[in-house]
């Protein structure tokens, strides 16, 4: 636990090597552990549970993704992360994008997996389907390529874990309810992100569409997009090996490019 501005942050740390700040998605960090372990073979993973998620506390004053970004600015100072790579998933991708607009010089590479956070589409259509107005089975069909195999089995989940699922959902609603899943200012700030950025999504993702990802990526000068086959909104859960390989490859290749002075 690390205490910042009244938030007790639950921290996961794994592996050795160059630091990689890992920002989980709306379902919390527990599901991500196998994927984190894969990344930890090559990097030192620093993974907080966001305020209000997992066992991290949620103070009364905190109610936005931007608030969390400010908590993590302090976290980076405390951990002496003067320059780090960052991986963010879904709402974690949104937090990563906010962070990168504030202190771009503190980041080496960004990987945003199924990120939310901007609104680029038409006003008369939600960019992101309303996850708070869908029955669980429909939501699972949007979230997973193969829901039968990968969706959480809530019926057989121990009470303590269910409590965390409920708490994660509550915090997700608090942070993303309105404006829904985005910060209207963010798209006007992303031009500041002058670091190589990889946008990833699962090919079957029903939450973050291919079009959304392309439009998001177009807001960052050095960004490109890639797709992971046979995966939905949580490619790191459905295809952990393929997803980890893509992430590590991107982080390594750009490191190599930088070392050789070939950075574009």
């Amino acid at each position, binding site marked *: 636990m690390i205490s910042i501005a009244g938030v007790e942050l639950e921290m996961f740390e794994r592996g050795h090597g160059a630091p990689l700040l890992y920002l989980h998605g709306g379902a919390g960090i527990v599901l991500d552990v196998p994927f984190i372990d894969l990344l930890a073979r090559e990097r030192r993973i620093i993974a907080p549970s966001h305020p209000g998620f997992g066992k991290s506390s949620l103070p009364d004053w905190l109610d936005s993704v931007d608030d969390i970004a400010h908590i993590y600015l302090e976290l980076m100072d405390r951990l002496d992360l003067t320059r780090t790579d960052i991986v963010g998933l879904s709402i974690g991708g949104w937090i990563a994008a906010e962070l990168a607009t504030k202190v771009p010089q503190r980041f080496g590479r960004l990987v945003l997996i199924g990120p939310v956070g901007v609104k680029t589409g038409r006003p008369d259509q939600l960019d992101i389907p309303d996850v708070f*107005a869908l*029955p669980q089975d429909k939501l699972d069909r949007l979230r997973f390529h193969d829901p039968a195999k990968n969706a959480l089995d809530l019926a057989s989940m121990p009470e303590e874990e269910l409590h965390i699922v*409920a708490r994660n959902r509550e915090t997700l609603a608090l942070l993303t309810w309105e404006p829904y899943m985005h910060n209207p200012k963010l798209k006007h700030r992303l031009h500041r992100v002058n670091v190589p950025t990889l946008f990833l999504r699962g090919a079957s993702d029903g939450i973050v569409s291919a079009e959304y990802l392309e439009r998001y990526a177009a807001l960052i000068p050095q960004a490109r997009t890639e797709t992971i086959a046979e995966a939905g909104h949580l490619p790191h859960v459905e295809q952990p090996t393929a997803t980890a390989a893509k992430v590590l490859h991107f982080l390594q290749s750009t490191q190599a490019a930088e070392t050789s002075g070939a950075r574009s």
Partner: protein
Amino acid sequence: MKAWHFSENAYPYLPPADEYESIRVSLPNRIYDPKKGAALYDRYIDEWLVAEDEGVEIMLNEHHQTATCVDPAAPLVLAALARLTKTARLLILGNPVANRRQPVRIAEEMAMVDVLSKGRLECGFVRGVPYEVLPANSNPVRMNERQWEAMDLIVKASTSHDGPVSHEGRFFHHRNINIWPRPYQQPHPPIWVSTTTPGGAGRVGARGYVQATFLTGYRGTPAIYDSYRKGWREAGRGHDVPVNRLAYAALVYAGESEAEARSGAEKLLWYMTANKVPLHFCYPPGYVPAPVHAQILPGAAIDQHAANRANATVDKAIEAGIMFAGTPDQVFRQIKQMYDHVGGFGHLLIMGQAGFLEHDETVRGIKTFAREVYPRLKEAFPDTAVSGMRQESLAARVVA
């Protein structure tokens, strides 16, 4: 005891329930025929006027994007009633304060109705049921905090008379609060708050507002009232809680004969049987505390509507204390049994119209209640009584 006729202004002309997902939130309004709707408004308002003629007070409420209650702007109907009625108290229960962006606007609406009705407004506040958060785009998290800040702000707006005041709170910001008109009643109209959990009731008791609870039955009501009384006493309001601080809402139908009563009561069950709402509309994240939500999550696949329908019988509803129905004698006894069970309440909120209960049946129910039950209630349960006395003195005797 005061009795209040409450009608939800339902629109019952719907296709079979298996043809739609939900009666609330997602039901397309092409189903709503404005001509039929206009006739219904006339009818429901007429029924409130019958209630007034019979000496029964008037209550209305507000819901959104639903066929169960086509009154999405209750202050509008309240304004009409303020001009159409002369003597009845007018209870709005209530303004969904956690879902409205401008509490000061609510204060203006309420002051206006209070003046229009020459001081007959009873001003109720509700947090808003869970299916209201999507229509209102209202964050389901921290609703209680918003509700209380809004209510306090409305009281402040209603009682500040010396030029602009301001409010910079957690959820609401108003730089210039100076409402015109100000309320007719001083310092402000009586305030009511509804809650269905003990947690909220203690806070309402501490303020001394009227606490209303809906369909909580023999099982749920005692803890709510106890919590209210505890809050009242701990706030230094004295030991005795007047019964007129507590209200109970039930489905009520009195008939001259058992058969007539049964027929009316069956139709009132529409309140429960028609309320087809899928679970994801019922439990938006944060609406209930996480530990409670955690208990609901594994049941995500349960068809709650089917379960409700199976349980919705007149006998079960009477047994649970959520319905008082029968001959005048039977209805009186049922109400007395609830009164004694919970330690007394001063207001009976009568859900007296639902679905296909026709106009003449609704009017007969109101009249039979008003003429043959209500006088006995007033006599047996005077407004000056103290709530909790009987139950607590019994308990004291047991301990002694």
